[in-house]
């Protein structure tokens, strides 16, 4: 294991990227910070800039307008980083698959600019907070 990956796994700081989600996954992500789940006790912290982040929590199936911004945010995140596709839409566009304004899903957009990106998937509509925590822990433990 390279020291970069080793350090990535300790208290990951995350940046939240909404790419056209319905808000549900986003609320559940914010919910993680509040007293019932409180992931800050595990060192997981939402940060205000992708340049500070170890991981991206991406929600939504990527709309046409959001796709260039998602690529830009990924470009700004220091590597190595983990991209978490949170929710059914982020994993495979979900119920919006046939939408004319959808160009996703997330892994397709990210792999266009970095074929070796580390992408983890947390399905669910929306995934429960427990599922998101479990997804993050599982992904970090296999790195």
């Amino acid at each position, binding site marked *: 294991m390279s020291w970069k990956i080793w350090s990535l796994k300790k208290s990951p700081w995350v940046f*939240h990227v909404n790419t056209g989600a319905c808000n549900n996954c986003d609320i559940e992500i914010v919910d993680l910070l509040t007293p019932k789940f409180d992931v800050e006790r595990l060192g997981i912290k939402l940060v205000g800039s992708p340049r500070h982040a170890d991981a991206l929590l991406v929600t939504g199936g990527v709309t046409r307008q*959001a796709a260039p911004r998602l690529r830009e945010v990924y470009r700004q995140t220091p590597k190595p980083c983990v991209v978490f596709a949170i929710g059914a839409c982020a994993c495979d566009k979900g119920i919006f698959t046939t939408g004319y304004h959808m160009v996703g899903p997330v892994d397709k957009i990210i792999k266009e600019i970095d074929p070796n990106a580390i992408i983890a998937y947390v399905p669910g509509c929306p995934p429960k907070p427990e599922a998101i925590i479990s997804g993050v822990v599982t992904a970090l433990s296999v790195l």
Partner: protein
Amino acid sequence: MNQEELNSKLSEIKDKLFAVESGKSRAGSDNRIYLSCESENSYAVNKFLFEDVPLRFVTATGVDSDDCFEVLYHYAYDQTSCVITLKAFIRDREKPSIESIAPFLPAAEWIEREIHDILGIEFNNHPDMRRLILADDWPEGVYPLRKDAKKPADRLDGEPPTRPMVQSQSPARRTVQLSKPVLPVGPFHPLQEEMEFFQLTVDGEIVTDIDMRISYNHRGIEKISESLQFDQVPLLVSRICGICSASHPLAYVQAVEEIADITPPERALYVRTIIAELERIHSHLLWVGLAGHFIGYDTVFMWAWKYREPVLDLLEEITGNRNNYGNLKVGGCREDVGDELQPKMLIELDKIEKKTEMLTKAVLDDPIIHARLKGVGVLSKEDAIQFAVTGPTARGSGVAIDVRRDDPYAAYADLDWNVITQPEGDVFAKAVVRLLEVLEAVKITKQAVKKLPGGPIATEVKEIPPGEGCGHAEAPRGETFHYVRSDGGNRPVRHKVRAPSYVNVPSFKASCIGGHIPDVTITLAAVDPCYSCTERMAVVDRDGSVLHNYDALLKLSREKTARISKELGAPELKMEDL
């Protein structure tokens, strides 16, 4: 139609409107009025309806009919629970155009831009016909909601995978804006919620102009809906917005029930009320928490979100999911509120009520919050009517509209509750409205649980006949409006959705301008937009370099709170107090 005929018809409308009894029953299509006119007359008729009757503008719908285009203007007359739809027919399919109504009705500005984007209808004399809903790189001349439209390639030819960060704008606009300091807000912001881009023009500390760009979240739901069966659409529309995932399906099923003339069983109406009110409780608590965060009261943020959790647990127990309940269907509900659950619900609701009362008292008695929020981001009653805002945003400006009372649906007519209004129009008034509405919602839910009648929760629905229906429901943020047209098949041929934020967000033009930069975060958040894009702001100077980032702005907002707190002589918070 010539002018005389039109005039006589319009005076008939006026008579008819005022003659409708303000009886509060859901009288099927009795309180739905459909009018038709040719596109040349639409300006005059709309002006008459908005200014002389006067009606509240709801939205407009563009429809691609076989031989013509239709623009449907929806109005509401809240006193008699009427929804009036004016259909303007545009016969020229090659170069469709119609007179814009935005010059006298600012609320119509966005929807006309949207119809121009998706159907290619020109609006003559529109003040600002820039692209609204489609992406910057959407190919010209492709109108997605036309029946013959094809999905274009995901990317324009030759576009590089990453693009420069500068917002694409016409060169003319860019030079105008760069002559003054500009404050872009968005499109990404780290804490939560959706993408949205605001551009504030500032003069020192004062905001002099605000411009908005949406589209980041446009998923084309209206088009997807045309490809789904009537019974599948509620699952789609509940995913328009995660927090309004009871209100959107509710408005949709009411529109379809209106077409098919279905009355759901009484128990279903009560279950719908319970779900909708639980949703209101958790949505308003969510807002209170975020508002606290924006002015530097993280304690309120943590409290409110903690008290919100039991509501989500109740919803999970009833419907099987914390959000996206998927509980509504045409003709009734899918999941019942079990009898064994009712005692538990009453206990939990009592707890929620006590905690909310405590929170309300803590917020309303705090001299610092008074000083910080009163007089900030004022939306006057006149502006509220011009921008046709709805929900707590309207009620906080003294406009007493509430679909639950004005056009009762579900079981609201049988229950005892009040519409909360505040006259001031500032952020504080909106906070008061929301907090008191949580208490009202608890009251409604308790009554509904206690009075829950027996019987089935759904009727069988066989066919949806041809026709059209308008359904609206009071979402936590305001009126959700759905228009559905059926041709007798098993899919809607047109399904128009108007979410409350769509009319509430443009009112920033009235409430933010003239305010201070530290007040912008909370003013933008005060309408509880589905994209409260107040994170990740940056002040940019002439050559585009960043002077302040979002954290600095949040800090400005918090410092103002601290300054006020010092001036008022409030004791400093010490560790022992916590």
